[in-house]
């Protein structure tokens, strides 16, 4: 899942891209509106985060042009312009949300995930798979057990997808890192363990005795489909 970020402040652009990538999303970075439109046409990302004040073509105009051809893709404005009129104009142009600067990483990630959930509702029509008594909706970044919804990060979804595809087989730690973090990323093994720990806390009924993500000593992790 790819997210396009457009901001003329290189620091914001880089930090935001790092935060979003850390959640397992692919990112595209644009330093101005024209570049944003070019990247949008070329890659068709699943979500756009746009600054308003940008050289060449401003964020409002980018939103207007994207909406002319795609009415469904979620668009979020991230702007330091905090006057009400800017919010009204932005939402009036078809944006899905308006996040005022300064914002925290947690806030922007939550807003991005909420926008993606609205765009890809976790209904019966969507793509899904089952792990034990847990149903995972990858596009909505959600898992469901009975009536309870569990929010997942993009990376967590990738990890569960990898385990589900290899049900009954151990998945090596390197494979996890390659497929869920990317080949050009070099987290150490503690990073994976910490993520698995967090994921178990989210999806296991008893994280101390996991039923979905089992540890395979010396190799990695495994999902026992028959259990």
């Amino acid at each position, binding site marked *: 899942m790819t997210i396009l970020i457009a901001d003329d*402040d290189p620091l914001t652009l880089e930090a935001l891209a790092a935060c979003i990538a*850390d959640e397992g999303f692919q990112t595209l970075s644009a330093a*101005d509106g024209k570049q944003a439109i070019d990247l949008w046409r070329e890659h068709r990302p699943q979500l756009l985060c746009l600054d308003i*004040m940008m050289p060449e073509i401003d964020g*409002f105009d980018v939103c207007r042009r994207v909406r002319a051809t795609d009415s469904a893709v979620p668009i979020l404005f991230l702007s*330091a312009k905090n006057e009400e009129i800017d919010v009204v104009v932005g939402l009036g142009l078809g944006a899905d949300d308006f996040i*005022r600067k300064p914002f*925290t990483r947690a806030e922007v990630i939550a807003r991005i995930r909420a926008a993606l959930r609205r765009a890809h509702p976790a209904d019966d029509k969507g793509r899904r798979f089952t792990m034990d008594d847990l149903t995972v909706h990858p596009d909505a970044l959600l898992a469901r057990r009975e009536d309870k919804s569990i929010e997942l990060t993009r990376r967590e979804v990738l990890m569960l997808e990898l385990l589900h595809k290899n049900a009954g087989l151990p998945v090596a730690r390197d494979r996890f890192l390659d497929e869920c973090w990317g080949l050009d990323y070099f987290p150490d093994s503690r990073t994976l363990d910490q993520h698995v720990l967090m994921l178990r806390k989210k999806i296991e009924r008893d994280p101390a005795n996991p039923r979905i993500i089992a540890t395979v000593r010396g190799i990695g992790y495994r999902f026992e489909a028959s259990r």
Partner: protein
Amino acid sequence: MRGIWLTFLPLLVAATLALWGGERLARREVETRTSADRERLHDFADALRAELDRLDDMHHEHLARIAGKAPFAVPEVTAKACSDIAGTRECHVFQGKGKSYAVSGTRPPDDSVRLPEVEIAGGKRPLNARRSVILPAELLEAGNLGASGIIREPGGDHEIRWFRPSLEHLVAFTVDPAELRQRVDTHLREWLAGPFAPLRESGELVSLTGPGDVALVTLQADTDAGPAALVMPHRTRLGEWQVQAWDRRQVATTHDTATLILACGIAAALLLLGAFLFLQQRRALRLAEERVSFVNRVSHELGSPLTNILLNLDLSLRSLNDRPAETRRRLSLVNEEVQRLARLVSNVLTFSRGERKTLELRPAACIPDEAVEAVLAQFQPSLERRKVTVEWQRGATSGTRLDPDALAQITGNLISNVEKYASAGGWLGIETTMEDGRFQLRVRDRGPGIPPRQKERIFEAFERVHRGVSEGSSGTGLGLSIARDLARRMGGDLVLDSSENGAVFQLDLPAPPHLAVVADEPAA
């Protein structure tokens, strides 16, 4: 905007009313009268009198002639003679106090007209005072022989004309004066055609009225002319005629200059007051808008660095254990953003102190190039990220005495402008010199430049060349204003030099040599 018009419009209306009222007060109507041609008028009046007298005498003589013959004539002859004289209804012939006979003359126009009985006092017939005209018995006295007179019918329209033609006789004619005057009027209207023509031709304002105020001729063009200037009445037995003449009246309108000037002055004062209030209100409105806009811009300016600080701190924490180099990089970015915030806060505080007149400079011994270098070092990472090449010709390495913080703030604002607005040019040129006790700093860029018409306006607070959202750049609009203000407080100036490519700012400050400060060797 409506509020402004609500202020100006009432004063505009008041000024209009003052002008209108002043004109009314200043207006003076001067009346001039041109006398009528009195001689011509008198000639006409004399002619009229003569004609009226002629008619009166003729009528009287006719009646006197009939009266003289009536006592001795047969009644039919008397009646025939009476019927030839206009308005003569009856003729009574008295012999002593007894009546000899009475005959009818002209017929009244209406059969319902009642003619009065004519009796003589002391006669044989009983007298009816209600229906009769009683002639006094004294008329028969010897002393009245040959006399004549007129007695009006009490409460009626007729008059009795009596004559004493002989010692024994009294003859009384019942005359209808209305018919008689009508005949006279008819005659006069024909007669007037001749004598009145000169007056008509000369345009005199004249009127001729007969008995009963019946207007025979009127040449009074101006009915508001007021009372007549000349009144010439003429009374006869037939009635009273009156010639009236008016002077020619002309009204000229002039204005009292003093009143008019006063009214114009009041109107002008009201308009000036309105314009003053209008401008004051507009200025206050603009200032209020600018301050609101300023607050918004400051909060906008805070937004980006704070976001960068928050995101980079979060990312630093995440990489703290396994990627310490990344953490260090992130923390240096945080440091950069904190310095950016510090510059913003410093600018706002300086502006605020300048507004409250509490801004003070603290001159100290310093080397200008060191101050510039420290500022440039703060911007270096940002300029590198934006691929801006920096060329610095150092020339101010000797010691002087000036406020190093103020110099740093000026330099920071000038470089910040290049970073924000001209980084697309990819070049920043700095030149420092120290000659003849003056320090000069020139900051050049190859950005879009500043339009000549905004050469001075950019130094005003809240003014920004780039305002639109598509300009991409933001700013509080204070940087250059503060920089020039500080430069002037330091006894120098900051100006925008003309340049064909990009912008060139030149700072010029007095910098007396200060030997106590020794410059470090410039980095190789």
